[in-house]
């Protein structure tokens, strides 16, 4: 079953409060790039990335969603049929952690029953730097006042690793802390998700897709056979 031409497609959706760095995490993963100022996502963005796990090829179809609360009613449109979800929060903002929890709750109730959820605390670079070097903040502030996009002036950690870890274990989530800026931890998120994906099941369900297409609860993936023109790697841009 591990033919290289037949990658396993995994639909993955990113959720979380506005400006926690969802798009940046994706950008880091897909293009290994970082932009200080990324336009807010309107509706959702779509990217793909292939990765190799042992002898299998996995193609992530990543839906990066808008974070603002009022876009929330649109989210079901994007997370339907998602096999995995990455719920992102900003470790310097406790409100974003609350929002993340409520996303987890929603996913556990509304999304596909076996959705794999990863909880990701982003912006690790902010606290690491301030922990290492107290002057860093002043530098940032004096460098460009307008550039500080986070309203919390002191970039101190608001959510401890332990607290998040405990919550993740209790809710049966994968847990990571990342920095899209330094790329710390980003790839691990996707690798661990890839490991947890029940590949056999997907390939099977892919074959029988025609029959159970209409059943929403079924893990329905887009058939590779019916898809002569692959979106391909060039799509990951």
């Amino acid at each position: 079953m591990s033919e290289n031409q037949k990658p396993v497609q995994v639909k993955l959706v990113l959720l979380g409060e506005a400006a926690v760095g969802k798009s940046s995490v994706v950008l880091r993963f897909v293009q290994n790039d970082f932009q200080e100022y990324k336009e807010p996502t309107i509706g959702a963005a779509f990217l793909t990335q292939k990765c190799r796990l042992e002898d299998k090829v996995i193609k992530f179809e990543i839906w990066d969603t808008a974070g603002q609360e009022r876009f929330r009613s649109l989210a079901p449109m994007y997370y339907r049929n998602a096999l995995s979800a990455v719920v992102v929060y900003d470790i310097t903002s406790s409100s974003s952690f609350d929002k993340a929890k409520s996303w987890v709750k929603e996913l556990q109730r509304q999304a596909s029953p076996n959705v794999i959820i990863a909880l990701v605390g982003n912006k690790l670079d902010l606290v690491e730097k301030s922990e290492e070097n107290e002057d860093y903040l002043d530098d940032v502030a004096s460098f460009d006042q307008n550039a500080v996009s986070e309203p919390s002036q002191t970039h101190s950690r608001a959510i401890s690793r332990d607290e998040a870890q405990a919550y993740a274990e209790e809710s049966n989530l994968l847990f990571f802390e990342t920095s899209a800026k330094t790329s710390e931890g980003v790839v691990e998120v996707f690798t661990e998700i890839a490991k947890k994906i029940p590949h056999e099941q997907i390939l099977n369900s892919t074959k029988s897709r025609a029959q159970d297409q209409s059943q929403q609860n079924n893990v329905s993936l887009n058939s590779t056979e019916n898809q002569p023109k692959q979106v391909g790697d060039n799509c990951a841009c």
Partner: protein
Amino acid sequence: MSQLTILRGYKDPDKNDLLCDYLRLPQSSTPLIDLSATFGVHGTNQVFYGNIYLFDHFLCFKSYDLRSCVATIPLYSIRRVERLSTINQPGTLALSFILWHGLKLVVQLNTLKPNSDDFCNHLKRCLRDQLGLMKSVKGFAKGCYSEWLVGEDIDDTNDANDANDDINHDPTSTHHHGLGFLFKFPGDPKKLREKSKLRLWKDYFRLHGRNITLVRYPQFTRLVQVGLPSKLRGEMWEILSGSIYDRFSHPGLYQQILDEHAGESTMATDEIEKDLNRSLPEYGAYQDPVGINALRRVLTAYSWRNQELGYCQAMNILVAALLIYMSEEQTFWFLDKICTRILPGYYSASMYGTLLDQKVFEHLVQRTMPSLHEHFTASDIQLSVSSLPWFLSLYINSMPLVFAFRIIDCFVAFGPRVLFQVGLAALKVNSDKLMDATDDGMVLSIFRDYFANLEESVSPQSSDPKVLNITNFSELLVVAFREFSVITDDTIIEERRRFRGGIIKSIELFSKRSAIRNLKDYGKFGVDGVNKIFDHFFYALCKTPTPLAALPPSTPSKLRISEELSDRTETVIDLTTFRVFLSDIASWARDEKMITNGFQQRVVRSVPENEIYTKMFHKWDYTGRAALGLQDLVKGLNGVMFNGLLDNIEWFFTLHDSDNDGYLTKDELVQLSESLLFIFRAEPGDAYLGAVSKFMTNAFEYADSLIEQPQAVKEGDKDKAETVKKEAKQKDPLSATEASDNCIPGSPQVNNDDPYINLPTFRMVCLADELLEAFFDQDLTRSFSFEHVPQSAIDHPLIDLSTLDDIGIGSTGLVGNILGGIFSKDNKEMLNGLADEIGKSFGKHHVEYRPAFGRVNSQVEVEEKRRPAPEEKDSSIVSGMANLLSSTPSWFSRSKSDHGRQEQEQVHEREMVEKPSSGTISSGGGSGEQAEEEALLDHQHTSTNGESHLASIKAAQEALANRQAFAIDQRDDNDDDDTLDDSLHSTEEAGGEFAIGSDEDEDMMDEVDAIDLDDQHAIGAEEAAKILNAPVDKDQRI
């Protein structure tokens, strides 16, 4: 989940709203007078037939042929009105209006003398009213780029105004301008032919007026369609949208809002802050504090101006784009226009406008490209995944900026239909590829590639330079406005009406789901119970009128509620709504009367006044925000609905213990007794009254006796009471004596607000009475119950269902809607009143108060008149208590007539809420009729005009023969003519004269023609077919 009730209050635009929108008037109003007239601008040879409208502040003209001529002239810009001689046409009245810019409009009224006299009188009055504003015109016009443009070489203009003399040649210092003047406009000015365009506009302005006096002629539309010149763009957007009139009439408001709220921060400002650096970051101005600060100011000011809306992501991108061409103040007003008039609900908290238009768009795809739609359905592709961002950001972040602004030009000029037309065209042009797409991701990337290559030629291999010049973008516009010319404003209005109900319902369902999910604590209710509580909560929210019943019904009162109380993430209710909520759940919290009059039997519910609501409201206000959210209600109800005897006694005690010190004061004890009396008010007989009076006597006796023997309890918890008592005595001997007067003789002196009775004593006193024990044991808890809120009640909460149901009318589905319309509140009130009157005259009128508990035998049917008034029972209450009661104001002293009045108020309040529902229904029918009429008019007009252009018709028919029949054509089967008409329309105009165009501009106008859609006079039918065939062929293959 705020804004719920606002969605309910939505009213379809009526005829006047549509007219005012069309004329771009600041507010919707009814024209004072509306006459058929002939209209022309002096110096041009064109004359138009149409209607002249006089509004309080505007004089407007709209030609019968909607594509020809529109003028919206503010009265303050009219300098002079003259009566022209009409010797050769006796009986008609002709007027000339000389406008501020020296423009002369000639209007001949085609009507009888009385009408024209009427017109003149109104006009005189209105002009006089606007005199004061005329002074502001000069200063205002100075701020317009068009003035500078026209005055640039003032020599060759005979313009009467000399306001421009002092303009120096750095225009940015005097007129409103966008960031583009400093940071360059997007696109290559040469390629965009900025100079030619500006020259054309300059000529246009000289003949047809500018800024506030601009008259739209046919060539105006063409000039907009080729793309506005960058320097003029901001101002033209203002004029096209009408936001310029708002800016004129609110000078300084923008700055004032900013000053008033300087330094304040809200959730909206926090969100704005996060996005400032993420708005068109590639444009120079937004890498600079100048641009960032402007963006911050406009977004912040607007979040204050429209607090209901606040800030929605995508607005940052929109505003960043607008600021390139407009000043902050211009942007502010233009944004207001977009959010409130052009795209209402797009950026609102629920985004219902966005969701609605996605639904509409999807349906239009289904109608016009059925096979594509089928393919999407079969492949489980959700179109809105791609199209939602197009609409929400007006294509700004989907296309290269240069092209997006071209779309916005058209959008501002022709309205929201442009967004749909462009979207449909994008689908049509790419339909081949889309038919091969198998998932959302592929669809997204097809569009991404397509939009990125809009600049490319459609057929790069072509040898014909003219064909080579046709870019993907011009093709897109041609397809949008030509192929999809069937999509009119009326189509959009119609489609929106069709889907609105469904969208609101799904938003509400979503709100419910997320509100319930956000609950941290379900108490003992479980999911089911919590759902029921939400239904009641929502129902109460829908039917509760504003707390300020004195407001005139037209005031959008619901808006106030949510504005003041909503914290945006959660809907909360105030005391008034809470009372309604509680009255639906607890039987003692409502007055229920069964009215029988021989014809019908109905139950009338009302909410009485009492302190107990306020007490519960405050007790349940766990977060201390003077408002209750769903969680508060769940927690509050949880604290009373699952109680046993002792819990209930404690609950009731705590409810009245306002400072939570474990003691009730004398005052509180009295209040508690009043609460009991209130709760038992509808129980028949004297039993409860007796119980309460006995309770009072006992309570005072025991409390006093405990305080009398301080030694006995000194070591215990009583010593506190003692010390307090002593202190109070020293502090305020006067009131202490007063208090002693009120007490049973010989009792110790205790202030009315000193701790007096504690829970154990209270419990003992309660348990001493059988009825009270029963009340606390079971009755109180049982009195709370979630009645079934019928789904239809939630669907149509504005119709009083309790009444409708009782006369046997269901109100679901279509029939229900119609009946709901017939049985508007007014009618129903009348009907009920009438029945009551007749019933009374027969002696059949009968009102029965339903008891809340019914423990005491309630079979005694009491007629309204004979209902025992509490006052009559004074004798049975011990004198001490009577004394106390009479000293405090309470519901108890109210007579029956008071009750009656309250009820009336209640009814009146309900009326206010229900009016909109009937309004919607009637206006719906009305505007439909009007649309039909208009269509008919248009039709006639077109065909008569068309006759004079036989040659063009022939060409059109040829073009038609080449054109694949359109899905939408086939669907509306009555319109073989319709298609013809459309082609006629365009060719007919092609026959018309094209006035503009000096030699050097001809080249430029060629481009205009290539993409021009309504007029293809320069393109032969053959060429047109060539352009059109490309997408058509694709459709064939589908």
